[in-house]
């Protein structure tokens, strides 16, 4: 029952949701992690989907953020404008969960395009969705991205969602009221912003992952915390719940 890289990421992220009240969930790995957390680490966690489901309790993983079961199991179903205006914007939600195609050393996120220019991109990505305001307004932001030099770049091609911008003071200057990305979970380890410089720093590696591998998969000169830790391996309960959860779902 050896965990896959995605399982390691998901369990690590799910654990970080312990003690939180509410979580704004995007689809994919963040949704898996949040649903795992609700089953194992935090049964009272309220899951909020931008499609309007507040306090959703899906029995299986939704393929899209709008699966019918989200509405059927939610404490409340509200319109999309209401989700953003009454729930996200005021900063009521503890944790926002984001992914990205690219992120830089200050955890600025790009989901807009890669290569070329905005007008004529090499690869056009889906775009903003809810991410810019999730990154701005949630009390904290967790990011889940698979570690590679393509994703962890020195400079993102476009800032879709602001992380720590250009460093200290950036968020306050722009009126970004949440703490921004406080945790980046990858398939190799965990990065957190340095309390002073706001630069992402490797604070934990997953069991058996050499620091050199993480550096090699990062497109900038990655700083490593002096007290670098190691992730606790997933427990058999975590893994079995996770596998039951993802079993029926695909791709």
């Amino acid at each position, binding site marked *: 029952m050896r965990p896959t890289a995605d399982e390691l990421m998901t369990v690590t992220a799910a654990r970080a949701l312990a003690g939180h009240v509410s979580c704004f969930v995007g689809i994919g790995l963040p949704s898996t992690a949040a649903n795992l957390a609700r089953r194992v680490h935090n049964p009272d966690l309220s899951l909020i989907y931008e499609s309007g489901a507040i306090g959703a309790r899906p029995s299986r993983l939704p*393929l899209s*953020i709008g699966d019918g079961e989200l*509405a059927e199991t939610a404490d409340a179903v509200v319109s999309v404008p209401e989700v953003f205006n009454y729930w996200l914007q005021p900063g009521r939600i503890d944790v926002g969960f984001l992914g990205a195609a690219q992120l830089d050393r200050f955890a600025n996120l790009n989901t807009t395009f890669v290569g070329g220019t905005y007008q004529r*991109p090499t690869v056009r*990505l889906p*775009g*903003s969705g809810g991410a810019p305001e999730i990154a*701005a307004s949630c009390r904290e932001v967790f990011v889940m991205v698979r570690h590679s030099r393509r994703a962890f770049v020195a400079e993102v091609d476009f800032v879709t969602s602001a992380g720590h911008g250009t460093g200290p003071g950036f968020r306050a200057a722009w009126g970004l009221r949440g703490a921004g990305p406080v945790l980046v979970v990858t398939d190799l380890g965990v990065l957190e912003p340095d309390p002073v410089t706001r630069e992402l720093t490797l604070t934990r590696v997953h069991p058996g992952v050499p620091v050199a591998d993480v550096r090699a998969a990062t497109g900038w000169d990655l700083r490593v915390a002096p007290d670098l830790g190691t992730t606790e391996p997933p427990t058999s309960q975590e893994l079995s719940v996770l596998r039951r959860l993802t079993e029926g779902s695909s791709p």
Partner: protein
Amino acid sequence: MAELVDLAGGIAELVRDGDTVALEGFTHLIPSAAALEVLRQRRRDLTLVRMTPDLVHDQLIGAGCARRLVFSWGGNPGVGSLHRLRDAVENGWPAPLEIEEHSHAGMANRYVAGASGLPFAVLRGYQGTGLGAHTDTVATVTCPFTGENLAAVAALRPDVTVIHAQRADRRGNVQLWGLVGVQKEAVLAATRSLVTVEEIVDELEPRPDAVVLPSWVVTAVAVVPGGARPSYAQGYYERDNDAYRAWDAVSRSRERFTDWLAEVS
């Protein structure tokens, strides 16, 4: 009062070349049949508006119906890219596509402003991001009480909004429920509206989480059972996830897409 029409007649009457057309549906109740009818009637030069353009927009863009896309997230939910959208933006095929890009919060508030008869809406948004520089419907306003700077977004006022709903009654009152997205706002913001429904019933039984649009704010209603497929209509049928996955293969190549287009046209 809403007129009862057939789909082809309703599209012919209400969606015109050059129009700004909102086809809305946030992951549920997507007006797929109506969108395909727009494509079949070969509308041109459209400004397409949607928070989450998906398969139906990929089809319309690939078919060359659109001049401009106003949106906040353009992907195949749970699957990946919209290849026709990408081909238009990346390579200008079959024609260049202007884009006007926002965040979800911005788009939702643009519809709210439109539905509210206001020229703009205020939100905390876009701060520190790259979008403001590329989108001229984002600006800054200053709070007259606190001096804070906030984002302003211009109201959306589509010429026509098309949505799919579960039901209407014989008087043309429309009822939808489940995830209701931004459909009420999109209809109220538009000059004209067409609602396709699963069925017409004698009486709209009140339901939890339902939105009712009174007949007098809807231009036309067309009965189109299954009109949201491969999306779903809560209480009627489920999302056809396989169809979303299958579209990926069809849309990936211009050739397969062109074959698909010939088949449906």
